Structure formats: C-alpha cells, structure tokens
C-alpha cells in the first residue's frame, strides 16, 4: 500500500501526541495488554476459548480473523465492557475491568456509536470534556485530528448528514481526542477508501513511534502487513501469534490469507 497517498487527501502527519507526557509507571509487565486463558460464553456459544495474548507496549498489534472469530469480544473485555466468563485480562498492568485505566484507553467500537444529531465538532467536544480536557486543548487536538481524518469541511455538519465512511472517521477521531496511551480500534478501516486507509496506517505508525500501543481488529488480511505483530483468531482460539513475516514463514505461504487458511486446516485436523 502506498504510504504517501494519505498526504494527498489532506491528511498530514501529526505532531507527537504524547510528547509531553510522563512515562507510564510499569507496575507489572512490559505488556500493554495481556490475557490468560480468556474464555467468554454467551449462553451456550463460546465466543472466546482460552485465549492467551501478550501485547508489548508501543507496537501495533493486529487481531485478525474472520467474522465471529471473537475479536470484538476480546477488545470489549480489554476495555472493560465485558467481564470474561473465565481467565484474566490485564491492560497497562491492571486487571480489567478497572475504571482507573479508562483515561489511558481510547476505544473505537465497530458500530459508529456517535450522537448523530450532534455535529462532528460537538461529538469531539463531548469526548474531550469527558476526559477532562480544557477547551483550548480540545480545540487544538480537534483541528489536528480533523485534518488527519480529512473532515475539516464537515466540522459543523451533523453526523446524521455524513456518509458511513465519514462517520467512521469521526468515530476514530473521537477515540483519539484525549491522546490515549493504548488505542483499541475495532475494525477502524471498514468503509474507508483505500487512499484514506493508507493515511490512517501512516498516522497509526506515527502514534506508535510516539509510544502509543495500538490494538486493531480487522478481517482484511492485507492490512495485517502494517502491524508489528499479529494474532490470528479462529473460533475464539489463538491459532498463531508473531510477526506477519514469521507466520508466513512458519506456514510456508506468501501472504497472510493463505497462512490463515493453512492454519485453519491444521486446527480442523487437530
């Protein structure tokens, strides 16, 4: 994917979003997120089956898998929206669910989850205020993020008047307004055109360089190339974990889609 194309859409690389922050106190591990035998049952349906992950700080981690693999459930547990049926999950060295880590997390759900009757600006302002940001800081950050998601012109448009892709971009901007230390993005590139998707990844890289950990779920296997590490999930289980290169090497494939199919066949055989 052409990493430079995003700039042509009006998106510019941001200043380091965490430059002025004091380093996070590492209480327990070097992991931004860690799960141990995470199990989640919805009635009789097992959405997660002893999922164990270790996600280092400051990387982009891709949680890949087909629809229904359990990616969203895992993310919801990490951000405290679901309490697991079994196992444990830690985020920024804190066992979740725990309210104390919420100011350090940015969460973009799969659905748009915005107040559609409000404008883009009003939505961003709401989230900024919920994180205790000053008006000045919100305005600064809002301008930067709207440039990034190429929505400056629609700043004062009600979200209800925006296209699906534009709503998705607004949602992404809202999740980043408070400069979180850990970003949990559930399918952030759905409905985003290729040019802007490229810009997104460029921005995510910039955030990663500034020390932000990003956990992204996606079912687009090609997007995984942008991740430092990936976890392949199928039927609630982790079937592979490592760098994209490692996984392709181990499965003797040339792309992640083939790697996933090979691993799936292996799982079925076992």
């Amino acid at each position, binding site marked *: 994917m052409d990493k430079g194309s995003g700039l042509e859409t009006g998106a510019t690389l941001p200043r380091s979003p965490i430059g002025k922050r004091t380093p996070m106190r590492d209480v327990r591990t070097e992991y931004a997120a860690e799960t141990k035998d995470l199990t989640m049952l919805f009635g009789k349906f097992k959405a997660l089956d002893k999922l164990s992950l270790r996600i280092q700080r400051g990387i982009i981690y891709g949680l890949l898998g087909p629809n229904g693999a359990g990616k969203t459930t895992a993310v919801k547990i990490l*951000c405290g*929206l679901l309490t697991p049926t079994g196992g444990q999950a830690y985020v920024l060295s804190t066992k979740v669910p725990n309210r104390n880590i919420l*100011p350090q997390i940015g969460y973009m759900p799969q659905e748009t989850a915005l*107040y559609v009757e409000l404008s883009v600006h009003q939505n961003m302002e709401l989230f900024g205020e*919920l994180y205790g940001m000053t008006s000045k800081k919100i305005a600064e950050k809002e301008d930067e993020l709207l440039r990034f998601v190429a929505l400056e012109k629609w700043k004062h448009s009600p979200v209800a008047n925006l296209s699906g892709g534009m709503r998705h971009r607004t949602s992404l901007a809202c999740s980043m307004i408070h400069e979180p230390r850990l970003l949990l993005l559930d399918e952030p590139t759905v409905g985003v055109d290729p040019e802007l998707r490229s810009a997104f990844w460029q921005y995510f890289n910039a955030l990663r360089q500034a020390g932000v950990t990003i956990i992204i779920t996606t079912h687009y296997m090609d997007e995984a190339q942008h991740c430092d590490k990936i976890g392949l999930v199928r039927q609630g289980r982790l079937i592979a974990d490592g760098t994209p290169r490692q996984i392709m090497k181990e499965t003797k494939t040339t792309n992640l889609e083939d790697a996933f199919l090979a691993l799936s066949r292996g799982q079925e055989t076992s």
Partner: protein
Amino acid sequence: MNIKRTLAITKKTFRGIWSDKAALMLLLVTPALSIVVFAFGFGGDVSHVRVAVVNQDQGYQIPPSRVRVSISGAILANLDSKVVEVYEVATEAEGVKLVKSAKAYGVIVFPKDFTRNVYEKSLDPSLSLDTTIRVKLDKTNVNVAGVIREAIGDALVGASASMGVEGTATLDTSDAIYGEGATMRDFFLPAIATYILYIETFLMVVQAFVGQRISGSLARLQVTPLRPSEFVVGNAIAYSVLGLMQAAIMLTFSVYVFGIACEGSMLLAFLVIGVLAVMSLSLGMVLSSLARRSEQALASLSIVALPSFLLCGMFWPVEAIPTWLRPLSYVVPNTYAINAARDVMLQGWGIGQIWLELVVLAAFTVFFLALSTVSLGRVKG
C-alpha cells in the same frame, strides 16, 4: 396484494415478538393486570368517605310518651356505614378544620332542637323553625361530594319515614368549603395535566436512552472516565429542564387560555407538576437501563401507564379502591402528584399542606435515580 409476501411480513413480526420473551410477557400480562385493577377499582363504589358531624340536637321527648327520640340520631344510624364514616366533632369550626387538613370530605351540622323542630313543624308546617341539616362539602372532588349528598339524602328519607315526619327536614348542601362552582373540567384538569406530563417525560427519556443503547454510544461512554452517577444526573438535569418547560406550557395554557381554576399559587402548582416530571424521567431511566431491547423498554410503558392511570385517584378517590388494592395506589407516584396538584389548584393549599406529597415525590425521584445509577453500572457492552 400478494398473500405470500404479506404473510412473510406477518411471520417475521411474530418471530420477532416470540424471540423477546420479556417483552412478550409484558404485552400479555399488562392487559390482564389492567382489567383486574379496573374491575376492582372501578367496580367498587366510593366508600369509607370520612365526614365530620356536629350534632347540636339533644333529641325530644314527644308528649305524652316518656321516650326521648332523636331524629338526627336516626339519620346518622341510617347512613350507609360502608359509604360514609362519621366522626363526631363538637363545633362546626372543628369539622371545617378536619376538611381543611384532608381528614374529612365534609361537615354535617344538625341545628339545636332539630328533633323538636321537625316534630313540631310536622304538626304545623306554617311554623318558622330551623329544620335544615346543613352539609358543608369539599366540592373539589365531584364524585365524592355527590356520593355524600346521596348518602345523607337517603338516610334522611329513611329516618323521616320511620318516624312519621316525612318532608319536614330539609338538606342544604349549597355551602362549599372548597370548590365553589367547580366543574368537572376544573376537577379533572390538574389530574390529566399531571398524567400527560408523566407519560410524555417517561417516553422522551426511554426513547433517548434506548437510542443510545442501540447506537452503541452508551457502551462507548462506559469506556470513558464518565461515572454512571454522572451520566444519570447529567441526563436528569437536561430532561428536568425540558420537563419543567412542558409543565409550564401546560399550566399556562390551562389557566390563562382555558380558564381552568387555580385557587392556589401557580408557582406551587408548577413545582408539583415539575417534581413529578423529574420523578417520571428518573423512572424512565431505570426502566431503560434495565431493558435489553427497545421493545422491552416500550412494553414497560404499559406497566407504568395503565395501572397508575386506574390507581392514582384521577377518576375516583383512593378511598373508593378496595382496601386490599389500596396499597398499590400508594406506591404509584402519580397518586401524590395528582393529590397535590388538586390541592393547590382547586383548594388553594400552600406548601405547608402539600409538603409531604412533594417529599414523597422527591424520595421516589432519588430512589429511581439511585437505581438507574446502579443499573447502568451493571450494563455492559
């Protein structure tokens, strides 16, 4: 019209309803519950209405008999005790005081020498003697006033006939303690206005909350530092302002455009209806936070709306509701709001007389807000 396509829609709708057992239960239980409440509540006539009696009549020893008789006593004995509960008081002022403190609906005054006057007048109708039973009523409750008048009238006819003095004693119910000239419209409006606001505010909140739930924005807020209590109070403030505005519009129109009586302070009437609106929105928040789907939240409206419609004293007084059902009336917040609204608008009562109703409504509000906070704290994803 294509039957197959039409039935496909019918089937889809039934499947949707069947899949949500909680909403289905509510839909099926509510009509039965409402009819039970209606049948018992409405079927029971106005009963156990308290009336104060000032009996200055000492009775009369009708010559040549040595027996002392009392026509007033006979009338009181003839009163249907199921309908009217009699409280004897020494003076008329004392009786009026009971009415003004909502402990009685009226005062019956038998004049001095009532029996003697009736007896003598029955012998010589041209005599100018006081044979009038004065009944001073709280006429703000049209139903109750009518029932009292009827009960006393029946008792008077019965007692007069048994003592052979028919047509001598008369009944004067022209004097009103409250509600002089009150019409059915005056009587119902405070209750109807209160009830409409109760339902409107409830629906407004349910709609907004369910919308946030479906869009995922409620879940998203839960991943921010926002606390459930902050979410609840923040919403309560916004919807209270809207509810109060609705209350103000409703009251202004009623009084200034349609000339509905407001004997008391408009500000106090506004406060009563406003407090009910806040209570109603907090109830809406509780039920929305408990509901898993929009259908459940809307189905809860039937539970909130129908029984309270029948039990709150809007059409007949709580006293007319069977004793075993009456406790339900007292757990319906509307009962207090309607009572207080009528007290202010029809009887001109002040804060000193309705503060208890306001405190009860405020207590309901705090309870529901606390419950919503707890409930929202448990709502995930």
